[in-house]
């Protein structure tokens, strides 16, 4: 697996993580090393194998569509970076 600097930039954008240009090369080298390990998987023929998403085959439970939680907005917003009038504040997204 050969990564290019463009690949790293694309993945970092998708992940919403800024990468400084000075870190790009090191990140590239580390990802290349890790994918060298991961590529071992490609040698195995897995045709017909059922993918395993979970350790146990469990059926998700259903419950009554009823309110189970009390309102804790004040408690939750007490630890938020920026709130006003019960709303979380973020930079303006619509001009």
């Amino acid at each position: 697996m050969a990564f290019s600097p463009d690949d790293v930039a694309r993945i970092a954008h998708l992940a919403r993580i800024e990468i400084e240009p000075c870190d790009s090369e090191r990140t590239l080298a580390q990802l290349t090393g890790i994918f060298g390990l991961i590529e071992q998987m490609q040698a195995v023929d897995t045709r017909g194998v059922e993918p395993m998403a979970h350790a146990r085959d469990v059926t998700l439970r259903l419950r009554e569509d009823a309110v189970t939680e009390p309102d804790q907005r004040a408690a939750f917003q007490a630890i938020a970076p920026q709130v006003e009038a019960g709303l979380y504040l973020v930079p303006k997204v619509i001009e």
Partner: protein
Amino acid sequence: MLNFTIRQLGAELAARRVSSVEVAQYFLARANTLGKTLNAFITLDEEKTLARARAADAMLARAGKDGNEAGPLTGVPIAHKDIFCAKGWRTTCGSQMLDNFIAPYDAHVIERFDAAGMVPLGKTNMDEFAMGSSNETSFYGPVRNPWNTETVPGGSSGGSAAAVAARIAPAATGTDTGGSIRQPAALSGVCGLKPTYGVCSRYGMIAFASSLDQAGPFARSAEDLALLLNAMAGFDARDSTSLERAPEDYARDLDKSIAGLRIGLPKEFFADAGGVAPDVARAVEAAIAEFRRLGATVVEVSLPNMHLSVPVYYVLAPAEASSNLSRFDGVRYGYRAPEYSDLLDMYKKTRAQGFGAEVRRRILIGTYVLSHGYYDAYYLQAQKLRRLIANDFIEAFKQCDVILGPTSPTTAFRIGEKSADPVQMYLSDIYTIAVNLAGLPGMSIPCGFDGRGLPVGLQIIGDYFAESRMLNAAHQYQQATDWHTRVPPEVKA
């Protein structure tokens, strides 16, 4: 008090020969001195701890009167890995991202230990978001191994393992996604157990890789692990993968003979290519010989796909992590970058600054393997191989009751020795990861020392829900040997 087991400590408390406040003060004093040297804790809060100890004393005083009951754990202190939300406690997950996060609710595991009357001693240091095998990725700095402070305690539950090893806490909680309970237990010379996936609720446990994460206890003996698991396990509707099973007493089989126990030895664990250090191999072989003396029989089994478990894990765990950690965006809680130009820039700078290098790396891996055009080649292929790895265990357990082997290929390594090379670090979990992929229970107990006096861990892997049988095997071994009672030379009363 230093070397009391939990059972002994519980008995002293129940007999009122010592108060819970006295016990808490004794261990808090150790946490404030030795705990600081080892950097085992992220948060200590004496006031909260002592308040809970006073409540436990009140419970013990009322025990037997008016239907009040104290249990075997009432008043016994326990240190919690800082991945568990505990209401009112700072809960950082070892990350700058959550440096200022005060949990507004309790994890189910915390509720269970609170209900059992255990006294929270503090929040232990850990690899950031549980991503690491050495406790070096913590925002709060590495934890030091009590057996040699130049070496790592293992990770990610390194603070919990070090605290129990150094007799700073008689018990601790941990979580295990790829070995994060068993590997630090091995490297720190204590006992640790990862239950079958779904036995302990993940509610309030900060998520890393949800299909692999499982909580479990640390202690100094198998018997103590059983008592802790009794309190910890149980159905919880708030975790969609919590299993609805009748409660069981995990201590019920401790005293049974293990004559006739069939021990499976996977040839892949003992092959030269596995890279087991000679001292580790010697200690594990001596432990197997002890089990045979106790009447167990040995059969060779095979896990032919085990060598794929590390690559499979480093696709699946980062994929799940990249999704789970997308919630850390600087909007609702946690860190927010001080300067940014717009919303996208706020996300990117917040996440670049708030996460450490290893967490960023794993998010990038996960994002890539889930991205358009690569999903089938990586994520789907890894899920198929996960099936093959799990099937290997199902076949093996047709021939044996438990599987034994090393927990880690080496004993504790030096701080800094592997931190520059992620791949070398990842390979130190070669024996533990497959167990998480299959969802099986696994544990590590001390079984000797290397030439430098560093502890070696023996891994015991069981079939689904075979915890009581594993604990039985471990307890019988610990009745015949004394490795688990050894105290690090630096650790004094």
